[in-house]
């Protein structure tokens, strides 16, 4: 069973439905015991970093997530959920993250050059840096759906794919049993579902 952590952030309807679509059991839960029992864990998230981090900690889900990460079972952060895995974020100030991955989250404003809309919204191609893992079924150049204004930087040691938007933005990361996607696999059609399938096939 895959536990999708519920900490009051974001819309989990599609994420839950997409696991159902690939025939995998998934439960949206804020129960630490269920997360401890799960075979794998998803940390979702949309909205602002500081607010989400605070909610994660207030709900006690930060500890549940740390225990899951330490247990060696596959853990994947999606969008803001991925950003929370890093050391800090500069979204509306400077805020600490979970620090499970090396790197920090910075804004596109002033870095991607003028002429490109912010947020980065839409389907963009993946440049695969390190194949396998959750990208097992993904081909170079496959498009996935992004919605974000901030991105992870300084994470070369975990980088598995990038996407071009003024510069090469971090699209996905992996280190050990920790995975992260900046894009939304649950909104990325067949390519996205193949990523969730590959995640479910990982050995814990």
């Amino acid at each position, binding site marked *: 069973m895959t536990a999708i952590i519920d900490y009051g952030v974001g819309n989990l*309807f599609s994420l839950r*439905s997409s696991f159902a679509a690939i025939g995998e059991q998934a439960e949206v839960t804020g129960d630490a015991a269920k997360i401890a029992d799960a075979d794998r864990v998803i940390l979702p998230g949309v909205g602002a970093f500081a607010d989400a981090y605070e909610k994660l900690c207030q709900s006690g889900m930060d500890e549940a997530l740390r225990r899951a990460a330490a247990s060696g079972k596959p853990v994947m952060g999606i969008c803001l959920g991925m950003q929370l895995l890093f050391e800090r974020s500069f979204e509306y100030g400077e805020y600490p993250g979970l620090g499970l991955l090396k790197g920090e989250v910075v804004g596109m404003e002033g870095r991607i050059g003028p002429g490109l809309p912010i947020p980065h919204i839409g389907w*963009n191609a993946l440049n695969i840096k390190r194949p396998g893992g959750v990208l097992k079924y993904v081909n170079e150049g496959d498009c996935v759906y992004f919605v974000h204004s901030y991105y992870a930087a300084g994470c070369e040691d975990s980088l598995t794919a990038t996407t071009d938007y003024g510069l090469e933005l971090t699209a996905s990361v992996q280190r050990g049993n920790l995975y992260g996607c900046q894009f939304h696999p649950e909104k990325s*059609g067949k390519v996205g579902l193949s990523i969730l399938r590959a995640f479910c096939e990982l050995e814990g």
Partner: protein
Amino acid sequence: MITKRIIPCLDVKDGRVVKGVNFLGLRDVNSPVELASYYSDCGADELVFYDITASAEGRGLFTGILREVASTIFIPLTVGGGISSLEDFDRVLKCGADKVSVNSGAIRDPELVKKAAWRYGDQCVVLSADIKRVDGQFRVFARGGRDDTGIEAIGWIKRCVSMGAGEVVVNSIDTDGVKGGFDLPMLEAVCEAVRVPVIASGGAGCAADFTELFRKVPEVSAGLAASIFHFGEVKIPQLKAELRQNGINVRL
């Protein structure tokens, strides 16, 4: 590099798609679920569902349909129509919408944009503006393009973006239904004024209109249309192939 998005818009009344849709091979041409799946398979990058129901009963049917679509189609879904409160946002987001588009609701209460962006994030709030030229000025119209609000459109859009609208749909009343192409001067004016993605709507009659749109106003992120897709006048796979041949980056 990011691809230009092609977005079909479906009008839904009492849980059924209106404006006869004539595709071959669909068992039920008015079923939102079948149509959504058809468009998703064709390569639509996103879908907009516009609820034109007025009754509470119709609203219930709509959210039921939305739930069903969101359980089977895994591309972004935007919902609009009659959104005038945070409760309306909540109702459709819980049923699987990813983004909510506000139009008249924001004109009645501009704070709605701010409140919704604060609660659900900027990415969730799409400002939809029906715009028409009046006395040499771009003017915002309300109630489906019927009422001149007297509000100057560019200032209105800037204000809504500063309050947290994460995307803007520009629907030109001047070109809507004419099928003579998108309203390029209006789109240019909006793209110059805001940094968020701008979606062009109103005026597309053929595939070449999309090519012209993305060539002449490259800042535009997406093209939205309804009847030309529903009546098969423009087929999305051919449209995307043509765009790519013309050097415009699309997802195939």
